[in-house]
């Protein structure tokens, strides 16, 4: 804000004070804001008094081209909830420094200086975790006055090197998240306008940190040597004055310095292209976790030291419990995100350590990925990774690893990824068809899909929903292009037309992938708690419809690709084996079958409960179930996924569901049977085995619930039925209680 505008606000403040305090002129509160070169104070009180007489209540003065909607962005000056200037302690960094808010050295007494330095390090860690969790950099990490002018700290080796490495670390993390460009709702994170982010290159900060670590290590060795009465080989100045505390302080410092060193190395390793640094990354992760453990252990020593100092404000953002010196949350209020001024609650030190441990575990998960060139494996990896609800920083790292320069892992061209996914032979990946505009479009869709799957679930679902039409349109365009070039053909087996084969296999694969996205869109609704229990029936019914199509397309695609493989090795084939494998449904398809039966069973059970008035939806005065259906599945309906599915067909399928027949029970029994049978095919895959077991459990429990309902009678008033997700994240289990 320029000078003239500040003066106006001061004038207003003065004017309103005037009115309430009578006629006495109130002196300006603080002369922190000076008249500028081109500006002078003017008393606006008479003008305001005149205006008050002139306007009636409800009348407004305004200028042209300015509507009332824009006025909503107005603030009330001096209201601390809106006026960030009022809430500031210091007008500027200079004022804060002049006031002694960030002394260098922190204390003349070396012991105090070391103790305070450790507090600063701890609070910075807590700020960093708070930043990662979604607040602005300016109000968290950069609330540290030392960080805002690191040149000031150059005489204090510990603080200086620590600040430098923090700057570089934050810059690294910022760059990964910015590059990912999928943090739309977490956009406060990357706001760094006006902040000194550093940028002298990593080597310098690491060498400074190493030097300091080396010094403290020697100090630790020296104090251990002197305590065991050994001769001190080096003549080294101790860290601080009190020999009894030397070991404790040295150790506390060392683990903090080492954590920073390994964390920074980790970030650099993970940034290496094509996943070349992942193995090294894992080593640094292990070191980080070990150092965090040491940091936690140091708190007992530090807290004991803190308790000797009485009258200090307690703080939960440091190991010692002391308030750190050199922080001011409001110092950057003008650089902060354009949000109302409010105190950000910095994570507690304990929670910050927990956050970093989780972050490291998530990064370790990423670093242990084998970079399987199969798209299906990549998709499955991301889906599994997301189960632990990783935060923005690790998600961004995964995305950067998966998609680089338009290639999978930065090395697999997307067309060859698609070729492999569609089950086509390797040599087709260099076919000229990849230049077809719709093939290129398809490649883009695959890249986008991978990126979107790395985002937070809420945003992810919206984007997946929107992309359904794009996938559908691309399919139609590919199909049209195919028909145009080769006419209405479906049974050509002539291998000379490789293009035909490519099209014929890619098309069902595109459909399969589209239905997979639709399925993911639907089940994410459960995780995000978007469905009320009254929506479950229609949602499971739609899942049943989508899964049926998914299974169908998958089967077609797999049959086609095994057919192509067979043709290649025709001469060596055992024809008897051929006949047997022809009739075997692939395990992946069978697995889908079990889910289909489960979805159908749940949908019908819920429909029956509704038909028997056990689960009564609210009667809205404004709309009906039809509008709810149209809204829930609007994006799927728009993309015709699947065809011939509507509210009418939904009602037709469910209107007669009841508990009198075995039909309901059969669904769950089949689901259970197929799941059991298919287990042997997935014995090597721990994740799949866990999923199959969950499906078995849900099928079993629901069957039991059904039996109880059938036996007692659904109309029995004492019967209470509810649904839970204890056995499976999106397939519900019915719980039947007699009250």
């Amino acid at each position, binding site marked *: *804000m320029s000078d003239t*505008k500040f003066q*106006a*606000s001061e004038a207003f403040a003065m004017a309103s004070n005037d*009115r*309430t305090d009578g006629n006495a002129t109130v002196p300006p509160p603080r002369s922190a804001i000076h008249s500028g070169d081109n500006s002078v104070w003017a008393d606006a009180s008479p*003008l*305001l008094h005149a*205006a*008050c007489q*002139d*306007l009636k*209540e*409800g*009348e*407004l*003065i*305004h*200028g042209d081209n*300015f509507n*009332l*909607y*824009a006025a*909503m*962005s*107005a*603030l*009330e*000056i001096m*209201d601390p*909830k*809106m006026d*960030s200037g009022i809430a500031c302690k210091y007008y500027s960094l200079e004022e804060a420094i002049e006031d002694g808010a960030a002394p260098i050295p922190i204390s003349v007494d070396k012991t105090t200086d070391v103790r305070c330095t450790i507090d600063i390090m701890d609070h910075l860690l807590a700020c960093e975790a708070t930043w990662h969790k*979604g607040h602005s950099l300016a109000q968290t990490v950069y609330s540290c006055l030392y960080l805002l002018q690191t040149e000031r700290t150059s005489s204090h080796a510990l603080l200086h090197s620590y600040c430098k490495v923090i700057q570089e670390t934050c810059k690294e993390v910022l760059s990964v998240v910015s590059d990912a460009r999928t943090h739309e*709702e977490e956009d*406060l994170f990357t706001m760094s306008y006006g902040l000194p982010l550093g940028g002298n290159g990593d080597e310098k900060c690491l060498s400074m940190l190493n030097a300091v670590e080396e010094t403290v290590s020697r100090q630790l060795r020296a104090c251990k040597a002197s305590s065991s009465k050994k001769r001190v080989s080096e003549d080294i100045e101790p860290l601080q004055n009190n020999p009894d505390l030397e070991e404790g302080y040295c150790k506390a410092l060392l683990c903090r310095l080492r954590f920073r060193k390994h964390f920074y190395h980790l970030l650099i390793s993970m940034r290496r292209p094509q996943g070349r640094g992942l193995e090294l990354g894992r080593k640094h992760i292990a070191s980080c976790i070990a150092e965090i453990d040491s940091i936690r252990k140091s708190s007992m020593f530090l807290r004991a030291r803190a308790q000797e100092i009485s009258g200090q404000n307690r703080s939960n953002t440091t190991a010692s419990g002391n308030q750190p010196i050199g922080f001011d949350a409001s110092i950057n209020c*003008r650089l902060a*995100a*354009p*949000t*109302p001024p409010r105190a950000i609650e910095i994570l507690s030190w304990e929670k910050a350590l927990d956050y970093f441990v989780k972050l490291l575990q998530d990064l370790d998960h990423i670093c242990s990925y084998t970079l399987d060139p199969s798209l299906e494996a990549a998709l499955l990896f991301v889906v599994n990774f997301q189960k632990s609800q990783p935060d923005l920083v690790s998600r961004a790292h995964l995305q950067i690893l998966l998609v680089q320069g338009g290639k999978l892992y930065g090395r697999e061209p997307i067309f060859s990824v698609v070729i492999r996914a569609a089950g086509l032979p390797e040599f087709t990946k260099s076919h000229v068809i990849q230049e077809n505009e719709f093939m290129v479009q398809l490649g883009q869709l695959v890249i986008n899909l991978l990126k979107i799957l790395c985002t937070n*679930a*809420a945003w992810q*679902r919206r984007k997946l929903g929107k992309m359904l039409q794009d996938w559908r349109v691309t399919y139609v365009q590919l199909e049209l292009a195919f028909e145009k070039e080769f006419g209405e053909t479906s049974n050509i087996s002539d291998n000379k037309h490789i293009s035909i084969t490519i099209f014929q296999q890619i098309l069902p694969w595109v459909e399969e992938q589209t239905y997979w996205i639709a399925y993911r869109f639907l089940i994410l609704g459960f995780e995000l*708690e*978007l469905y009320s229990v009254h*929506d479950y029936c229609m949602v499971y019914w739609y899942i049943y419809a989508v899964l049926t199509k998914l299974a169908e397309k998958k089967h077609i695609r797999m049959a086609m690709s095994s057919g192509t493989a067979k043709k290649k090795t025709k001469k060596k084939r055992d024809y008897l084996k051929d006949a047997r494998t022809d009739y075997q449904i692939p395990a992946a398809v069978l697995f889908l079958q079990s889910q289909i039966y489960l979805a159908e069973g749940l949908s019908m059970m819920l429909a029956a409960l509704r038909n028997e008035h056990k689960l009564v939806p*609210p009667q809205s*005065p*404004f*709309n*009906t*179930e*039809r*509008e709810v259906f149209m*809204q*829930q599945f609007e994006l799927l309906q728009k*993309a015709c996924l699947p*065809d011939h599915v509507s509210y009418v*067909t939904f009602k037709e399928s469910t209107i007669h569901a009841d508990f009198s027949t075995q039909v309901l029970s059969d669904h769950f029994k089949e689901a259970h049977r197929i799941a059991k049978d298919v287990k042997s095919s997935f014995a090597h895959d721990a994740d799949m085995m866990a999923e199959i077991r969950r499906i078995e459990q849900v099928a079993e429990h629901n069957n039991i619930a059904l039996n109880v309902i059938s036996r007692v009678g659904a109309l029995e008033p004492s019967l209470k039925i509810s649904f839970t997700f204890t056995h499976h994240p999106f397939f519900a289990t019915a719980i039947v209680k007699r009250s």
Partner: protein
Amino acid sequence: MIEGLSPSSDCTAHNRNISHAATSPITVVFSSPVIDCRSTYNIVASSFVDLSRLKQGVQRRHTMETSTKESLELKKVDCDASEIEYVSYGGEHHLPLIMNLVDQELSEPYSIFTYRYFVYLWPQLSFLAFHKGKCVGTVVCKMGDHRNISRGYIAMLVVIKPYRGKGIATELVTRSIKVMMESGCEEVTLESEVTNKGALALYGRLGFIRAKRLFHYYLNGVDAFRLKLRFPRPELHPSLPVMADKYGSSHIPSDLDNSAFEQ
């Protein structure tokens, strides 16, 4: 709780109340928006000056203190539903009542212009609930075109604590939605914290679905649901791009037989 849509049509409603000062208008620059959620981040120069506070000679903080004391009476008030009087927004005299209620109950600051925006342009959509002359609840809404769909928006809904659980909020919202429906709105929307079970239940009963979840929508890190209510509409031939040509009319749902399924 304010939705950030692109600026709607110009406010002509208030123009009749405009008077210009004899000298050039005072320009006051405000630096940041007060909106409590990540909708608009535009820094605007406001040339509006509202003198209602100065005229009343009462500072904002002072008003808030007294009203906070009132709200400390958390005892439930015994009253019958028939004792509650519902009134449509009637003018300037209602504005301070609405502002005090919202200031009391909600932690986010709204400037007076925010209130004026809603009640000036859509007075028929805001309602107040009175019990024995005391204002105990209010709903503030707007409506407009959003991507060619006429849409209502519920901006604020407050009922003071001693009067909760009596259906007053439901009644306020219902009245407003009825006006929206009669005015030709096709849908109604609002945002609500995912933790606000009461609001979710209330709107759920009225036919709203949770259309989206908005990650960390509120600055305290809480997620929000976008709730949406769609009114029934005559569905003849829903236009579907590309698909219609390719697949013909076989996929268009036949809506003629819906009567059998309506409640």
